[in-house]
């Protein structure tokens, strides 16, 4: 690695996520130890083989295209929909860099994480239908979806593929992932746990749960999906601790801030972080992106997100077109091959959507089923609902 340069006070003061992370990233080794790193430092850990590169591309494309499909049929979707547009390099890059057996705690903008892991899950038989089908069934809230209609959209959890659910208060992934990580450590399983939170969640009390991870030396990586917006509030309105990785200094954690739209950089840094985590030192990684969509499908974000910002990030930091250009420039794929790949994915999506549409809705009486694992409580709840014999 090259000799690291300390980040100066002046540089922190004038920190700009767009400008400052193009060729560099930040490493925090401890209090007052904040260094610049060159992305080239990561090259050793970046994937080189065509198969992996194409897998990353495909994962990002299917994530984007599946969500765009939902956007087009939003009227048929019960409730709302939440997209990770702009976040694909982060979600796919991280999941691809880690082992299938490592335990993820993804968020609503991390469907890419599921599309990556879903391939292995289907191959192993952990899930019986391709993940893309489950994705549409879940969005259409069908009886055969992971949540069986009891929760919708991206709140799914798929226990069969070790995919815990997320809940809407976003900081909550931290304590739960800490508990899971401690368990893996106790069991000496060799697994690590990785969880996601939003940039807004670094203001929550649950963020303090990272103290527990450090105190217990948990094999944990916590990723901040920093898309710079909490619904309609900017990050700058919420905190002066920018970049957010600075907050880890207080916990005595290793931390990084990286361009989250560069999948190769994210992938490589995650590989490095896994080693650190496995040694019993939890890691915080701020993966910086820009939300290229609304908070939800019905959020008219263009009315409040400055057009200049949106254009700038869309043009220069769209993770998918950026990666496609890179692959074309390096001769890995041709434009034609990309088009063929898109056609193939489109077909897969249409087929999955059709399958989901033809899937049954839950029946009214399903409302009362499976409220509690405990049979006495379950029966009692049915009685209280007037369903069972008293």
């Amino acid at each position, binding site marked *: 690695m090259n000799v690291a340069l300390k980040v100066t006070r002046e540089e922190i003061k004038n920190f700009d996520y767009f400008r400052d992370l193009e060729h560099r990233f930040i490493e925090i080794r401890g209090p007052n130890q904040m260094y610049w790193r060159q992305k080239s430092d990561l090259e050793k850990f970046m994937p080189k083989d065509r198969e992996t590169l194409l897998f990353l591309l495909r994962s990002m494309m299917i994530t984007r295209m599946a969500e765009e499909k939902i956007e087009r049929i939003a009227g048929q979707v019960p409730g709302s929909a939440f997209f990770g547009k702009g976040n694909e390099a982060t979600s796919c890059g991280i999941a691809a860099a880690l082992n299938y057996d490592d335990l993820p705690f993804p968020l609503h903008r991390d469907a890419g994480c599921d599309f990556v892991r879903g391939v292995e899950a289907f191959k192993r038989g952990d899930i019986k239908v391709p993940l893309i089908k489950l994705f549409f069934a879940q969005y259409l809230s069908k009886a055969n979806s992971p949540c069986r209609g009891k929760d919708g959209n991206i709140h799914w*959890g798929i226990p069969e593929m070790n995919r815990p659910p997320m809940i809407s208060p976003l900081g909550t992934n931290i304590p*739960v992932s800490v508990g899971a990580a401690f368990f893996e450590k106790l069991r000496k399983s060799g697994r690590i746990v990785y969880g996601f939170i939003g940039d807004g969640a670094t203001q929550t*009390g649950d963020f303090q749960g990272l103290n*527990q991870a450090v105190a217990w030396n948990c094999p944990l990586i916590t990723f901040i999906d920093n898309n710079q917006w909490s619904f309609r509030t900017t990050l700058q309105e919420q905190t002066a601790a920018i970049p957010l990785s600075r907050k880890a200094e207080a916990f005595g954690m290793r931390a990084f801030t990286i361009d989250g739209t560069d999948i190769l950089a994210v992938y490589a840094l995650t590989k490095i972080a896994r080693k650190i985590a496995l040694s019993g030192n939890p890691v915080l990684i701020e993966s910086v992106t820009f939300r290229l969509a609304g908070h939800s499908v019905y959020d008219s974000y263009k009315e409040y997100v400055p057009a200049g910002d949106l254009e700038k990030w869309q043009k220069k930091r769209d993770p998918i077109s950026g990666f496609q250009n890179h692959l074309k420039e390096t001769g890995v794929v041709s434009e034609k091959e990309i088009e063929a790949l898109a056609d193939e994915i489109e077909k897969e999506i249409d087929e999955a959507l059709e399958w989901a549409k033809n899937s049954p809705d839950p029946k009214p009486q399903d409302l009362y089923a499976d409220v*509690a694992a405990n049979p006495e409580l379950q029966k009692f709840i049915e009685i209280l609902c007037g369903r069972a014999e008293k």
Partner: protein
Amino acid sequence: MKMELKPYAREINSALRGDMRRFQELSVEILILGEDVCRPAGKDGAFNITSGLPEEFPGRVKNTILNESTIIGVGAGMAMRGARVVIEMQFADFVTDGYKMIVNYIAGIYYRNGIGLSIVIRLPSGATGSAGPFHSTCPEMLFFREPGLLILSPATPYDAKGLLRSAIRQDTPTIFIEWKRLYGMPEYPKELDFEIPDEDYTVPIGKARMVRTGNDITIVSYGVMLLEALGGCNILREKGISAELIDLRSLMPFDHEAVSASVKKTGRLIVAHEDKEVGGYGAAFIQLMSQRFGLFDYFDAEPLVVGAKFTPHPHNPVLEREYLPNAEDVVKAAEKMFGEKIYAVSPVSTSAGTAQALPVEKVDDGPGSELIPISVGQKIIAEILTRQWQRPHIHSDAEVNFRNIKIEIDLGKEKLAKETGVNLTYTPFIAYAVSRVLMRKRFRKLRAYFEETIKEKGKIDWAHPKGIKEIRDFVNISIAVAIESDDPEKDDGLLVPVVKNAHELSFVDMAKKISELAEKCRGGKLLPDEQKDGVITITNVGIYGVLRGNPILTETKQMASIAVGEIKKNVGILTLAFDHRMINGMLAGRFLQALKEYLENWEGIDIFKD
């Protein structure tokens, strides 16, 4: 240094120790999490509940950061991977910091995502004496409305041990409410002091414990308040009230069957807890028992909650005593249900009919008196009527169509007269209907009567009934029979013979009995015994062409009286007089309506068959 724990705390500690061993032998990870749960020298946990465990199970009893949301979240993460987790909140009050994690994350995760979690959250709850508003809370209602959580609350060492084991050994998140006051209790009253067996036992979730059986009132309690409730039962016993005491143990699910059976027997329900009276467990419990479990019609008195006042938990001992419920409050609630303490005094006989037999007494008001003398009987009647007039009784009318009855009479009159000599009228039909409808459980208040307060000289203080003396499980019907005198110089009279056990008589026997009693009246052969113990009176004023009567309740032991107006074109008016202290307008209305339906839908009993 080994800690000497008192029974309740000791058995919780023992259950934890035993199940940690048990699951470790099965190679299942089991962990205890909490603030200060792992301290040296046996000082484990604020109440030493985990004492000795860190030494025996190194690395499995974990001190956590001071962040309840993290503690519970961490527990959820461990449980999700297959661990069994017991979490200690240092004080139940602090659970609010982890509330989001419980209600948003773990309560519904099985429903949403099919993930069962073995998490027991132990909550040291309740007042301990000037512990103030942040160390005294009762947390049950924070969780009651969150489907997917078990809520358990043991009161005895035996149940604490058995229920904690049951909770740890299943996969639904459990709110385990412990009582700090019980931690320090050196010994239990003998009714709650059960021997702890050496062998492994569990206490079933959802089953109550019958602490004491009784007949007059059901008291449902749990946790530390159970001891106060037991004290209340002892005081009530001295006052002659036999209370049944049920320790709920399991608050969600709760043992509705045990409570139903008890209330169906006693007709009265008190829920006693340290939780607040307003919006507390009892409020929800009574609503469910009344509505979902159908007890509404069985209540003889309004069910009551005995709980803490609806104020913040105070600090000063004087204020805290005022705030907390105790045994005396349980007694007061019971007394409210019964009126006051019940005295054994003989009821006043008020049968107006007996006046007939009394001799005429000459009065001498001194010289110049020109009053026409009246009989002692008439005087007594005047006294009784005036007294009863002051009794708050009101009237309701129902218009009844006797078309079906008329057909019965037309069809059967001749045959009945031939076979039995009975002249069939409307009266036996009405009496029969009254006897059947009145036996219905929901109308039992019409069969009840008060123990009245007797003022000097046997006068009744209607304003202060002491309680319900009896609810009769039979219907004796008083039938007013007018005795017309042939001699125009003599007054007409009235006798009120009683058809005993009318509810058991067949229709024909009823008609025969009424006819027989009327004969006796007219022949002057009615015995005093045959005028006693009526439950309700029927007076047929219609025979004089009167549209409707407005009866007065002459019998103290009768809560209702029915007058039957003239039946014209098959339609007649039934007027119900009722004691408004016992019977509200709704119940009277329902009774009249039921009676009307019974008569109008008379199904043509084969009157000659029975």
